[in-house]
């Protein structure tokens, strides 16, 4: 391996399909510990995904997708993201996302004792991620 590695292998797999596979320069996404951006040569690490925007920087272009759940295994020369839910912008239904956002906000605003706050928050984050990616 040469000293100046510019890219590494990114693989995003979901239970239903291989979502993305290719050589990338950087990948950014949201984790339980906060936003991270991964460059080549990262130390081996496993992180848990939180809903957010996934940005894939390839040599020529940048791609975005909404990544909602799963975990990522980071190695110096490759990253594997095991995603339970991940969508390209053209797969997102904007109206549904807006509705989900409203619903989640309402639930948080008038929450009751039995409201599962963690669940509603995840729903809210998902809706936000979907809408952000569409912009």
């Amino acid at each position, binding site marked *: 391996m040469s000293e100046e590695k510019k890219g590494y292998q990114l693989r995003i797999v979901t239970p239903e*399909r291989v979502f993305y596979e290719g050589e990338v320069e950087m990948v950014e996404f949201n984790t339980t510990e906060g936003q991270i951006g991964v460059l080549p040569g990262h130390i081996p690490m496993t992180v848990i995904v939180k809903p957010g925007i996934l940005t894939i920087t390839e040599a020529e272009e940048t791609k975005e997708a909404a990544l909602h759940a799963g*975990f990522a295994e980071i190695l110096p020369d490759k990253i594997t993201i095991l995603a339970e839910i991940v969508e390209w912008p053209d797969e997102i239904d904007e109206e549904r996302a807006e509705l989900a956002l409203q619903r989640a906000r309402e639930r948080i605003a008038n929450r009751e004792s039995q409201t599962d706050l963690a669940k509603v928050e995840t729903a809210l984050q998902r809706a936000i991620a979907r809408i952000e990616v569409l912009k």
Partner: protein
Amino acid sequence: MASMRDIKRRRSSIQSTQQITKAMKLVSTVKLQRARAGAERSKSYFHCMFDTMNSILARVGYVDHKYLKPGETGKKAVILISSNRGLAGGYNNNVAKLITRHETWKKEDLAIYAIGNKGREILSRADYEIREQLPEVMEAPTYADAMFLTERLLKSFEAGEISEIWLAYTAFKNTVSHIPTLMKLLPVDRPEPKDIDGDGIPDEVFEGGAPMNFEPADEEALDLIIPKYVSSLIYGGLVEALASENGARMQAMDNATNNAAELIDDLELLYNRARQGSITQELTEIIAGANAIQ
């Protein structure tokens, strides 16, 4: 000897049955191809899942984690994946036998979560407790179905209502070989490497040289990853079972079509013999009649 008309009627009835079985075979062939493609698409996900799971478990050593030790109270939960429709040969019976013929399990200690109607029917006839039934899942299994079931199972597990979680499904080796498989989902067995399709993919997680780091820390990571691991196993079971079901049905219908062809051949022979017999008889009668006139 049966009359010519009877034989003819039987033959045409078998012929129409043969047409049905032939059509069903073609349908299940198409469905099998689709199901198999689905199972293969999901495979890479499961391999990554096992590898990661194994490397995590290898690293954490002994931790007192709720998902890693058996519950003290409650029954064993068994998820039974069978089909909604019959005419699939021994498919449903074979997978149900894993439970009914199990060496150490007792009927009273089990709670069945039945996916697919046929398996549920077999077990409820044998007086097993069917705790939940989800027949519609089998029509088109999705990962969301597996997540939904996992969530409920884990809740019961944490509440101490169930002590172990097992999965009974039919593993898909290839078109003709399907193996009923019983697999333990929870508590997770540590040293034994998990391998859903039995082809022994070795661990390659540490190929980067340095040991794996976890964020958040190991135990928290387990909290989050084990549910994903369980649902991925259930989903894997579902898609493989679907492929196996269609494979089994295709085989059963192929056999039925062949048997029908054999029967038709036999009847054809019988029919010709009966026809020959009746001609001979008529001739004998005419000759005898002619002789009587002379």
